[in-house]
């Protein structure tokens, strides 16, 4: 920013120097023209005066005035010189100016506002200096006026440049400073903060948007890594409890062979479920460490994933019921494909669905699927206890549990994990809830586009 300020001040200085130089050049040019023109006019009048004084036309002093305008305060003088160029006599010449007169030729000089033109003439063996003096009205009045005009224009110009600079600073540098201040506030402890895009316009808005999108990715990756152990424990806990429970129950008394077989089958199912979750967690652990920071996403059918997720939820808890509405499935099956990792998406959806079952009094979750132009919509609804409005903003924080969920088992890890997985797939997960009536989780994922 310091460099930027310096550049701006340098530009202002260049502009000011240019304006001053321009004004000075105009003044110099006009003054120069006024001088040379006036001296020409004086020279002409001096020649006429010498004709009159030296060639016997002295009795017609005013003949030239019939044709030429007399200059302001015009005066004529003649100085007679001896051989040594000493003054013999003069007619009203100011002797203090004698040193400035060229005794051997022509002279033009200026004293105050009076301009002089003199020349040496030889007449009948005698030398004369004939001269004319006059005030330059154009110089004393018009040029002064122009000078004042240019000075005023210069001051106004400087004022204009200052005002424009301040406006530029306010409209351009201030938003950048604001952007920098906002970015400075974001750290690892508050990665959820975002730049307020509405405050900016044009390219700065694009910059804020790009930065926010980058923050989304960083936050997802950061949280996933940070909470990996909690996520792993959470996901592995349920199948392990299921395996231990079945084994304990089976071993509690002697049973028939078929019962043992059935129990073993259930244990195998739970172990397979455990293996799937372990694989999904390994994929999650690799987030951010893949080549080019991208997971190896592939096109997957979301309806299949939703059904698999429901199966896995029902496998964990037989009391859970899931009602599915596929009535809005698109006719084109390509619209059901998303670019992603099947095991991770299944993990996310099963977490949301099992939460819906858990908090519903009849352990029933309603799942619906539809597709719009560029995305897929998954809705998971329950008719459970709902979430208090004051808790809604915290439900994505790991380990947070709603104030009315104390009687339900859980750790507050499933929903944040599901949200992070959806965000990794460039999707969104949002929750709306009415206390005592139920909760709806809305998941949107972008459709896979081959090109």
């Amino acid at each position, binding site marked *: 920013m310091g460099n930027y300020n310096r550049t701006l001040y340098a530009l202002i200085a260049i502009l000011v120097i240019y304006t001053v130089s321009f004004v000075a050049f105009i003044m110099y040019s006009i003054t120069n023209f006024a001088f040379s023109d006036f001296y020409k006019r004086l020279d002409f009048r001096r020649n006429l005066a010498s004709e009159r004084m030296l060639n016997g036309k002295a009795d017609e002093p005013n003949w030239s005035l019939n044709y030429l305008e007399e200059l302001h305060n015009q005066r004529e003088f003649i100085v007679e010189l001896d051989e040594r160029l000493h003054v013999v006599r003069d007619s009203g010449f100011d002797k203090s100016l004698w040193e400035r007169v060229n005794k051997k030729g022509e002279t033009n000089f200026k004293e105050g506002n009076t301009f002089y033109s003199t020349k040496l003439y030889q007449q009948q063996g005698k030398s004369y200096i004939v001269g004319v003096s006059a005030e330059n009205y154009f110089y004393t009045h018009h040029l002064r006026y122009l000078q004042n005009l240019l000075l005023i224009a210069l001051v106004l110009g400087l004022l204009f440049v200052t005002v424009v600079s301040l406006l530029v600073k306010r409209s351009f540098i201030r938003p950048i400073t604001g952007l920098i201040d906002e970015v400075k506030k974001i750290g690892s402890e508050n990665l959820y903060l975002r730049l307020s895009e509405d405050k900016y316009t044009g390219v700065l808005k694009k910059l804020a948007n790009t930065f926010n999108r980058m923050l989304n990715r960083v936050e997802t990756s950061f949280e996933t890594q940070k909470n990996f152990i909690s996520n792993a424990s959470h996901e592995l806990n349920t199948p392990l409890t299921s395996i231990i429970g079945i084994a304990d129950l089976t071993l509690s008394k002697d049973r028939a062979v078929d019962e043992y077989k059935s129990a073993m089958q259930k244990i195998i199912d739970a172990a397979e479920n455990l293996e799937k979750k372990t694989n999904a967690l390994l994929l999650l652990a690799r987030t951010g460490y893949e080549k080019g920071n991208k997971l190896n996403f592939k096109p997957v059918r979301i309806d299949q994933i939703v*059904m698999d997720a429901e199966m896995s939820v029902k496998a964990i808890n037989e009391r859970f*019921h*899931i*009602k*599915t*509405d*596929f*009535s*809005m*499935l*698109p*006719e*084109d099956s390509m*619209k059901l494909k998303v670019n992603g990792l099947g095991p991770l998406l299944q993990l996310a959806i099963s977490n949301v669905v099992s939460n819906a079952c858990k908090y519903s009094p009849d352990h029933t979750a*309603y799942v*619906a699927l*539809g*597709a*719009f*132009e560029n*995305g897929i*919509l998954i*809705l998971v*609804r329950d008719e459970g206890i709902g979430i208090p409005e004051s808790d809604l903003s915290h439900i994505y924080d790991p380990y947070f549990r709603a104030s009315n969920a104390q009687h339900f088992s859980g750790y507050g890890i499933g929903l944040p994990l599901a949200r992070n997985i959806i965000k990794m797939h460039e999707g969104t997960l949002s929750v*709306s809830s009415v206390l005592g009536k139920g909760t*709806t989780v*809305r998941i949107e994922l972008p459709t896979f586009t081959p090109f």
Partner: protein
Amino acid sequence: MIQRVLIPSDFTVNSLRIVLEYIENSGDQQVEMVLVSGYKLDSSIGMLLGFSTADHIADLQDEDFLKGCEMIKSRFKDKVVEIYGDCMVSKNSRYVRNYIKGAKFSQIVLPEAFEFTHTPNSFDVVEVLQTLPFSGVPEVVTVQMQDANLQEHDGLDSFFFRKNWRFSYE
């Protein structure tokens, strides 16, 4: 031949239920659906010169509504050729008759027991249409709105779980 159908709307997601009810209860005929809302123009010169139907409709439609329309088009790809919005700007019966005649509607859908959201200057198109006598052309189709409880719910989830028989899998 594609039929052009007038469907009253207020451009809320909830009003798209009328579209769904109509599609699900009509035949296999291809349809072009025109969702029509009512907006009474006042007589100021600014309004007369500055009003634009496209801008007005764009103001009323939110992101979920557009997604809802896209979802219906995806679901009924072979049946729904196009869905777009339009606006009646007067309740005058002559204007309404000319509007219907000019747009060449072959069907007009009238929902029963549906309350539209009112915005300033808006009017209920259904009420206006019910006052007009139609003698066969265009055909008037009445649709029954299934679940009155969904009336209050203006969200994309009102598309789903509308009828128990639709739960296709458990």
